């Protein structure tokens, strides 16, 4: 089953071509990588899928439904979750509140319920809370429920952010440089975490990453883009020896 299909995606930012004729197909449960030098257009692809930009040209299909043109919160409600390069947790709210808020679109009660504190409101709030606590348990973050993210280590924050993204039980998870800013020990843990998520949640994961250790050990397939154009696609071994890729990169981690 094809989870995500992108056709001929092209993006112009006032005359600057950020992305040119980008195509990809992700199947259910795949773990795919998207790599390229800085400024290649990787985050632009994610932003387009998420709904932050309208594509200049091209189509994006999620579970065979077109999603280009939808607002980000609508895309998320359909089953696409995402994390960011810079961790975007709500720092003045507790970890638990962060996770609970991710279910905002499926709260199941209305304004009248919340003003009158009806039975439905109480039950639904409790249910959301329980779901959030369950998730924290699965991720072994239970003790941190009442902590504020700003007091946690960067690695833990990253973990919370990924947990938050999964709280809506999406079918596609977009990870934007999850290893960015992590010390090497945490990177090893991150690789295990993503492995585990992939097996546990059985979801498709699409990952942008610069650290080759992460990409090569996790992804079954990698797409390489440079200056908005796909220059290579294949398995990790193929990409490692692809001359075009080596030329474009020349400078990141050891392959």
């Amino acid at each position: 089953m094809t989870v995500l299909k992108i056709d001929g995606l092209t993006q112009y930012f006032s005359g600057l071509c950020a992305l040119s004729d980008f195509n990809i197909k992700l199947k259910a449960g795949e773990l795919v990588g998207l790599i390229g030098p800085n400024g290649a257009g990787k985050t632009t692809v994610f932003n387009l899928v998420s709904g932050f930009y309208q594509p200049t040209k091209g189509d994006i299909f999620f579970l065979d439904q077109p999603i280009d043109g939808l607002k980000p919160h609508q895309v998320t409600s359909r089953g696409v979750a995402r994390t960011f390069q810079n961790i975007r947790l709500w720092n003045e709210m507790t970890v638990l509140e962060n996770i609970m808020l991710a279910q905002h679109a499926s709260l199941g009660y209305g304004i009248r319920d919340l003003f009158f504190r009806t039975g439905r409101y109480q039950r639904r709030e409790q249910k959301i809370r329980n779901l959030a606590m369950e998730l924290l348990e699965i991720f072994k973050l239970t003790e941190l429920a009442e902590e504020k993210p700003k007091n946690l280590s960067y690695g833990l924050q990253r973990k919370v952010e990924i947990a938050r993204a999964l709280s809506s039980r999406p079918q596609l998870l977009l990870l934007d440089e999850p290893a960015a800013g992590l010390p090497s020990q945490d990177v090893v843990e991150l690789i295990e975490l993503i492995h585990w998520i992939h097996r546990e949640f059985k979801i498709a994961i699409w990952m942008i990453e610069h650290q080759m250790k992460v990409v090569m050990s996790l992804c079954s397939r990698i797409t390489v883009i440079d200056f908005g154009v796909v220059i290579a696609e294949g398995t990790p071994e193929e990409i490692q020896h692809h001359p075009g890729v080596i030329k474009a990169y020349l400078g990141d981690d050891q392959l």
Partner: protein
Amino acid sequence: MESLIQNILNALQWGSFYSLIALGYTLVYGVLLLINFAHGDIVMVGAYIAFFVSSLLLGHYHSIPIALSGGMALVLTIPLTMILTSIVGVSLERIAYRPLRRKGAHRLYVVITALMCGLVLENGNLALLGASRKKFPEMVDKVIYTFGTVSVTNLKIAVILTAFLVFFLLQFIVTKTKIGMAMRAISYDKFAVPLMGIPIDSVIVFTFILGSSMAGLAGVLFALSYPILDPYMGLTIGWKAFIAAVVGGIGDIRGAFAGGFILGFLEIMVVAFFPSTYRDLFSFSILLFILTLRPTGLFGVPKTTKI
């Protein structure tokens, strides 16, 4: 046809005031990304300073034995007012805004401070000078030029000319001088600028001097044109000029200049065809409409946040 020309001339004059004030707003915003809400009140302060200076020079204060002719007094009043008003503006910067800037305070806090400074200026004036309005002395004889049924005074022409001159001067400073470049640099990256050896505080003080002296100039001209002064005169015209600057594209000198005239035209045209009580209603509604179509203003550069 002639009444149209008359209206256009009136609009140009009225718009010149908005432009002058809008230019001051945009200078400070362009550099500091700060909406200096006190700016309108600085114009008021300028008008009052001009009042006292000119009264003094004309010999109205018998304890000080000066008595200049109207024209001479005017020639001195304008630069004196501009200098004194700059002092007021710079003092605001040093006392209220700079400490917050040093602390890296959230922009909102500076904006609120600016709003409050405006209030202090208005009500301080009210407290010090009382509620009775001051009448600005007549300094230059009005000369009316008539072309058919269209008439325009020398003062009106002077105001319009001044607005254009100030615009070209500011545009020159900002685009062609080194300090202008420094001003623009600060608006892009406040932190990199000192690292490049540019004394950020000096540039900011210069910006305030420029902006406040323009406010002072606007104050003098306004007082000459509409001689009744009251402490709240800066309030409405300040807010409106600010909105005009935003509609034009705040941060851009051309935007402020254009915005001021657009507002001037709107107001004069509305009053020409509708009862004057509808003036604010229409002008604000149209301005809002323009903003809806172009949220960053006519000349504004859309700011994108990196996601």
